[in-house]
């Protein structure tokens, strides 16, 4: 089964794949076990090493052809899961220009499901902007803005100015236009450790999305038959490396630090979004 990763840059796509791979090979994925890796897993192993050093992953370059391609066992069932890791810039460029990326377009009809990535701290600023960081631990925008601008179309408004939830709805609307059958969708709210740390008591991911990503939430509710979905809060790193991990996490392995919170607030394994997708597609 092929699952698409949908997310713009720095929304935690590669981080989730690395954390999921770490959970699978270290038996932290509940009932889901890895049978064998089918494709090159070097980027996943390197990612785990980076997490072990408490370093954020490097961004995925535009022409990357990396993927998590593994055979998984769930009870007696063996399933091949293929999750290509495409650069977020491709999706950003596609949404900005409203021109389909050919590869993404080809995937839409073939995919069994998709994971849509959103950043918790982008959709609902959780603290002062000066200390706000990306899920990968870096500042979200340059400290110094460029002194010059490239020649770009002289439009006062462009899709690039749309807020993240409107862009997500725009993407899903376009995808439904290309696909006649339902697309199971796992919504991944990344940097969930920040929500958990700053909102007490922390909401469930479903509650948080209904409160903070209203347009997307309403769109998904209205299109539930064509877009069956579940919302997960994910912390692939377990915390913010740049701010320093909590003391009780410092000695933990990356696959023990990372966590997922299920749609209703229950703590779950990194495999739970994939398990949900597998259930939704059968």
């Amino acid at each position: 089964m092929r699952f698409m990763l949908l997310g713009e840059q720095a929304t935690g796509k590669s981080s989730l794949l690395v954390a999921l791979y770490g959970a699978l090979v270290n038996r932290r994925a509940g009932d889901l076990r890895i049978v064998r890796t089918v494709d090159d897993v070097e980027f996943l192993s390197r990612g785990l090493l980076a997490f072990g050093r408490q370093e954020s992953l490097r961004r995925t370059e535009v022409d990357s052809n990396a993927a998590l391609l593994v055979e998984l066992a769930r009870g007696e069932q063996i399933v091949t899961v293929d999750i290509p890791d495409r650069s977020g810039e491709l999706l950003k460029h596609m949404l900005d220009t409203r021109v389909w990326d050919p590869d993404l377009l080809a995937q839409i009809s073939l995919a069994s499901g998709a994971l849509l990535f959103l950043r918790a701290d982008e959709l609902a600023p959780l603290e002062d902007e000066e200390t706000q960081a990306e899920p990968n631990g870096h500042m979200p925008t340059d400290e110094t803005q460029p002194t010059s601008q490239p020649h770009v179309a002289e439009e006062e408004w462009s899709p690039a100015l749309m807020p993240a939830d409107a862009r997500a709805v725009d993407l899903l609307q376009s995808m439904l236009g290309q696909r006649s059958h339902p697309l199971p969708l796992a919504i991944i709210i990344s940097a969930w450790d920040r929500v958990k740390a700053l909102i007490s008591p922390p909401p469930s991911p479903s509650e948080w999305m209904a409160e903070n990503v209203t347009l997307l939430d309403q769109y998904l509710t209205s299109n539930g038959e064509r877009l069956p979905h579940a919302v997960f809060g994910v912390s692939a790193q377990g915390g913010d490396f740049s701010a320093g991990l909590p003391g009780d996490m410092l000695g933990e392995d990356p696959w023990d630090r990372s966590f997922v919170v299920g749609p209703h607030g229950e703590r779950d394994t990194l495999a739970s979004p994939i398990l949900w997708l597998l259930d939704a597609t059968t």
Partner: protein
Amino acid sequence: MDAVDQLLFGYRDGHQLIAASRPLSSRQQRDVLPHLDASFDQADAQQLVGIGIPSLDGYLLGRIWPAPERPRAGAVWAHALLLSAEQLVSIRLAGLLGSLRRPLDEQFDHYNSALPLPQGFEYTAAPPLLERALAWAVRSADISPQIVLWDNPDEAEGTLVALLDASPSADRLTLSFRTRERARPNSPYRIQVAAAVAGPPGEGREFVIDPRDPPHESRPQTSAA
């Protein structure tokens, strides 16, 4: 004709066009973006890329560097020259390598105007074994993509551009190359120069030339990637 257009890509809320001496349509930006992005293992590495871009009716010659000073891990800078089809066949290309500059201190104004063509040129030859392998790869009657293995791919830069310069005019737009740390199977480049090949053996359609072995009496041996 006495100036060449240039582009600068870098990380600003995503890897994107930062400065340019000419406007680019969305389609043109999409077409050049994959060629001006990279992943680096070494902080002091660089990559050279040359490829024809049909939507620009021209040829892209660019260099990519890691940008550890930028806010996102894995960010890169890429500076590229856009040669028109006419420039590609009429100017000495070897001098252009010296025009590819990594930006410093957030100063981008330099990249917003066309670059005067350099006067004269200097040629840094590759080590003989590499030079010979590159010549074989470029001049091979077999136009299958080729990977040339070399521990320091940067050493191929001067020779790659010199070979482009020396190619028949009609062939230049289709002669594409890239230096990188690890060659990719099924890449869009006719020639990749790399220290290693990424991915499992046998995945790609490329032929691998490994001139690091002792000198060959004749054409270097080839094997499937």
